[in-house]
């Protein structure tokens, strides 16, 4: 009986493989887009049962390391790859593909507030520098005429772990504040002069929920899922814009992508643009030696850039503007 079962299974397996050679793609990297990628790969597998994709959300740094070491077929990173990192890849060149994007929001815990708090461009960098320490600071009160700001100390919450979210958030702060650029500057992990650190988005969210008066930066999708209050921020054009998929996409549309498709949107222009947005990239080789892998990655990337984009808003990501999609598709077609 047992033998029979094994035999049938073996037969089934061999029949399947006879129909189409199954391909397994291994990938790892950024945790930020991992929920979207997970959804993509599950949907794609339903359409193409012969392609199986294993994605491990281990963090951008690990994604780059494993891709460089040849452990994965493609990597994923919120900070793309630096020229130095690209030079370290020995087997051929690297193609960077922006596949989706997201916004970073300032979430806060202020009980009894009737509308989202508005934070001007000179205020929120000052909060993260520890220069504005009270919620009823005259600058915050002036920007929120309809709200009664409480007399609460501001507690800053940041990511304690090294993260692409910190990288993009501090890049933005450094772009709009000379003080922030001078110190602490920007990077995946910086020394904030004030505040407490939480591990991961969930750690920061827990800090915010716990203590009234706390403000911290988290990804839009995460804040949306966990119903955190999100501040309305003043953009480069001087307008206050709430974080939504539309205001995020508007910001992305302002960006002129260079040929290597590596552009950090540190301070987007445009009246309707939300100020803190970021692309997130796939890291692919220009050439693949394993048969079928290049075609599988190209088909997958093209599907993600077209059909895949419609999954983005529901999960809190930004659909790529059409102009960006065209450019990325051109880059996909160069993979051999």
């Amino acid at each position, binding site marked *: 009986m047992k033998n029979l079962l094994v035999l049938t299974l073996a037969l089934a397996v061999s029949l399947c493989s006879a129909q189409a050679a199954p391909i397994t793609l291994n990938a790892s990297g950024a945790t930020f887009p991992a929920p979207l990628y997970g959804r993509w790969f599950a949907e794609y597998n339903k359409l193409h049962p012969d392609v199986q994709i294993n994605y491990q959300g*281990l*963090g*951008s*740094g*690990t994604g780059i*390391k494993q891709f460089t070491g040849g452990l994965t077929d493609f990597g994923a990173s919120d900070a793309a790859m630096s020229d130095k990192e690209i030079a370290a890849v020995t087997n051929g060149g690297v193609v960077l593909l922006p596949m989706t994007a997201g916004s970073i929001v300032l979430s806060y815990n202020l009980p009894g507030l009737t509308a989202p708090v508005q934070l001007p461009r000179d205020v929120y960098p000052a909060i993260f520098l520890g220069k504005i320490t009270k919620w009823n600071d005259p600058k915050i009160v002036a920007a929120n005429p309809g709200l009664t700001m409480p007399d609460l*100390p501001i*507690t800053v919450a940041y990511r*304690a*772990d*090294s*993260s692409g979210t910190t990288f993009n958030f501090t890049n933005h702060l450094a772009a709009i504040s000379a003080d922030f650029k001078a110190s*602490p*500057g*920007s*990077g*995946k*992990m*910086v*020394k*904030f002069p004030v*505040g*407490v*650190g*939480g*591990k991961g988005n969930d*750690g920061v969210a*827990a*800090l915010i929920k*716990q*203590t009234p008066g*706390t403000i911290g930066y988290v990804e839009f999708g995460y804040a949306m899922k966990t119903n955190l209050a999100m501040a309305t921020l003043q953009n480069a054009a001087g307008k206050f814009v709430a974080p939504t998929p539309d205001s995020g996409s508007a910001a992305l549309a302002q960006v002129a992508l260079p040929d290597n498709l590596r552009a950090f949107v540190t301070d987007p222009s445009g009246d309707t643009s939300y100020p803190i947005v970021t692309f997130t990239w796939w890291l692919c080789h220009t050439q693949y030696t394993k048969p079928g892998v290049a075609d599988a990655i190209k088909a997958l990337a093209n599907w993600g850039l077209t059909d895949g984009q419609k999954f983005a808003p529901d999960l809190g990501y930004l659909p790529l503007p059409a102009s960006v999609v065209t450019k990325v598709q051109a880059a996909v077609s160069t993979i051999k």
Partner: protein
Amino acid sequence: MQTETAPLSEATTQWIGNKRAQRSKSFDLVFSWSTFIASWGTVALLAWIALEVGYAALPAVRECGFGFLIGTDWDPTDDVYGALPLIYGTMVSSALALFIATPLGVAIAIFLTEDYLHPKIRSIFKFLVELLAAIPSVIYGLWGIYVIIPITTPLGNWLNTHFGWFPLFSTPSSGPGFLPAAFVLSIMILPTIAALSGSALKTTPQALKEGASALGATRWDVILQISLPIAASGIFGAAVLGLGRAMGETMALAMLVGNNNQISASLFAPANTIASLLANSFGEATGLEIAALMYLSFILMALTLGINAVAEFILERTGASTRHF
């Protein structure tokens, strides 16, 4: 239907005896060799880990040298590494935990060794205290976030507004910080301290206690003047071993200590510890940062090894060794 079994001849008995002796001899040999290999293997493994960590730390040792120990900045963006706030955070959070856990642990040990309870109930208590050691670190962390921090935060803010001039209360509470971290840590090291202090207290000769009682000493006198002085160095060893454990604790601290690389005298200020920084940064570290993290690991390893060795030495001398087997 009785059948008589013929007695074995003398030669046969001897032959069986020899065979058995030979077999047990070779068995003995295999057994003693495998225990030898297992125990020396453990020692070799420890040496190997230390070498490997030290080797990986070399670039940072070359780059930062001893300045690493007194530097106060930890900035991977500019490749500037200083470990002082982390060493300070590790030592202070562990010392605070010890400060809370030692009196509690010794009290538990006295309660469980000085015949207050029926032996059956005593074993239940003992089991429950030891069970504290079986709770995963991350559960302690969650408990700290959702139960302890909401208690320590208003307490800290109250102390700060009324006694802010006192250095220990000089900052308002920001949620996570030294106090909640040390409190949770103290519960985590409580079983170690209680169990080892208990075995130290048990070494008090019964005759001495009975003699004191016979001379009119109350139970209070016996505990304070006979049991505790005799067990003192054992209890000290237990506390030092608890300290060693507290210093290496990672997950609960990463969740509770606030992860801010600063040196502040205030109990309510966020801080950071070596183990917590390692857990937070390792995944994304590159280049010199990896070496710097390895250097930190090496320091932590040296500190805990040193402390454990001191504790073991003290316990050894008092006979209340940790080697229960």
